């Protein structure tokens, strides 16, 4: 099992490096620009106050979005660019992990070895999960040395909260991808369905903030529970986020394992 695990990590290391370095480069840029934003925080605050409340809610803007490093990064990096990177990375990896192998026919060499399907599933699953953990750690905690380099004060506890929230959010998306990858024999379907599902969730969250009568729709969206502004500015995670993200991760991973172990695999 660990042979496949390590080999998977080895094969994906360049991809992980590209995602992580891109994320760090973006962070570096935002942190380098932060002092000039802070200088104009009074006018930005006034500007934000003029926006409709529902708009601010929909896009996770907070009054402290430009006055503190945490708020600024929550808005600029962790509410938009970072989730997109996580989604691309997790769906890309999960689609290739099982469905991609079936599509290319390389699964045959693995299935003809003395390893159970459950071990094969977990070796791929855990390799992807470790990649996610590494990405979250580097892409969140690299803020600390970068902030020190630019003499910007920060609260490391808040970034720890952000890392926990980010990890749960990533794991839930990853479990959707792995589940679909266990069901289908074509990674294109995994990308299409999981991408569609996440876009749908994003739209639901925006709609729920814009219209009062649609507000309950937010509960069906990961993007309601994934609130970087709350995590970074107030060091808070919605209590329901634990249940939703961890529940989805557990249920879909278990279902994926059961389906992959029982299904016919024909390349």
């Amino acid at each position, binding site marked *: 099992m660990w*042979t*496949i695990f390590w*080999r998977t990590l080895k*094969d994906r290391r360049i991809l992980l490096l590209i995602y992580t370095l891109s994320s760090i480069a973006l962070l570096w840029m935002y942190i380098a620009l932060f002092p000039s934003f802070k200088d104009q925080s009074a006018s930005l605050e006034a500007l934000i106050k003029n926006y409709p409340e529902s708009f601010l809610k929909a896009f996770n803007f907070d009054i402290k979005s430009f006055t503190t490093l945490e708020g600024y990064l929550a808005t600029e990096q962790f509410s938009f660019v970072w989730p997109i990177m996580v989604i691309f990375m997790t769906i890309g990896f999960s689609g290739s992990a099982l469905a991609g192998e079936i599509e*290319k*026919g*390389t699964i*045959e*060499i693995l*299935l*003809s*070895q*003395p*390893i*159970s399907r459950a071990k094969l599933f977990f070796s791929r699953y855990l390799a992807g999960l470790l990649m996610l953990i590494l990405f979250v750690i580097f892409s969140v905690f690299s803020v600390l040395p970068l902030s020190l380099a630019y003499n910007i004060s920060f609260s490391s506890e808040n970034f720890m909260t952000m890392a926990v929230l980010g990890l749960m959010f990533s794991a839930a998306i990853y479990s959707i991808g792995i589940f679909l990858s266990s069901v289908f024999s074509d990674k294109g379907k995994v990308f299409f369905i999981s991408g569609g599902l996440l876009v749908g969730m994003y739209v639901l969250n925006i709609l729920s903030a814009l219209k009062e009568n649609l507000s309950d729709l937010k509960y069906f969206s990961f993007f309601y529970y994934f609130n970087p502004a709350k995590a970074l500015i107030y060091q808070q995670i919605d209590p329901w986020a634990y249940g939703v993200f961890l529940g989805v991760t557990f249920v879909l991973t278990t279902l994926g394992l059961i389906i992959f172990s*029982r299904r*016919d*695999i*024909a*390349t």
Partner: protein
Amino acid sequence: MPIIEVKNLKKYFGKTRAVDDISFAVEKGEIFGFLGPNGAGKTTTIRCLLDFLRPTSGKINILGLDANKNSDQIKHKISYLSGDVRLYDGWTGEDHIKFLEALRGQKSIAEKLISDLNFNPRMKFKNLSSGNKQKLGLILALMFEPKLLIMDEPTLGLDPLLQNKIYEILDKFQKKGTTIFFSSHNLAEVDRMCDRVGIIKDGKLVAIERISELKEKRMHTVKVYFAGPFNRDEFTFENTKIIKDLPEGLELGVKGDINLLIRKLTNFNIRELEITHATLEDIFLEFYEADGQNKNSQPYADREQNDLMAIPKLE
């Protein structure tokens, strides 16, 4: 104890009966050919043996163990080679070999096979020719000296030189006790390699025969040239049919006892007589036309000999 024992295996995909109630056994040290055209159910059967597909019903035992419940235990002792080897594009042959050695925690005879097959293990899989890809597949299948080797059309698209090299290596492994089960639609290959053959048609096993017994089915082609007048209608009876008219003669197909025809011929003045055994291809095609379902085929005795000889693959 048979190495492979298949009992009443059925595999349906919805309403499609890919494999329909087949039973057979393969004994230790045997080379068993699984013969049939594309879509007959060969690959589905192999995938059930390897537990890639789960049977709709029926039982498969390999090395005395249940092929589904004990799949990973069985796979310590068996190997698989597909005719269309698909491996990791970015890995070299060496990467694949080391990966499998680490996965199994076993030493292998890969180096010897590399030298026997004159294979370069340092090239990436994506840069290998189809022949070299197949060589790598064969090395990976044989490097742990399996007790049972399962192959799905292993020489598909390979040049005759490489085919022969593969046959030589497989012969050596059989002599060392490896049981070989392989599917093919190449009759020459089956003739060259197998002890026994199972013939599958539309998901059903229509015959299991020793190659030697198949050849003894006494199908003959008779070319007769007459020195005097003859009535061609007299040569269509019981087991004899006219294949074609020859100048002052006939080409006849005979199934079974040839003495009936010989006795008939004694009534005529013969100038020249040529009797040849039917090939394995002729015999194989007999199974495929038995119930007349194969619309593209004609009964043996109605087919021209040239056509029979020109069917290396039944696609």
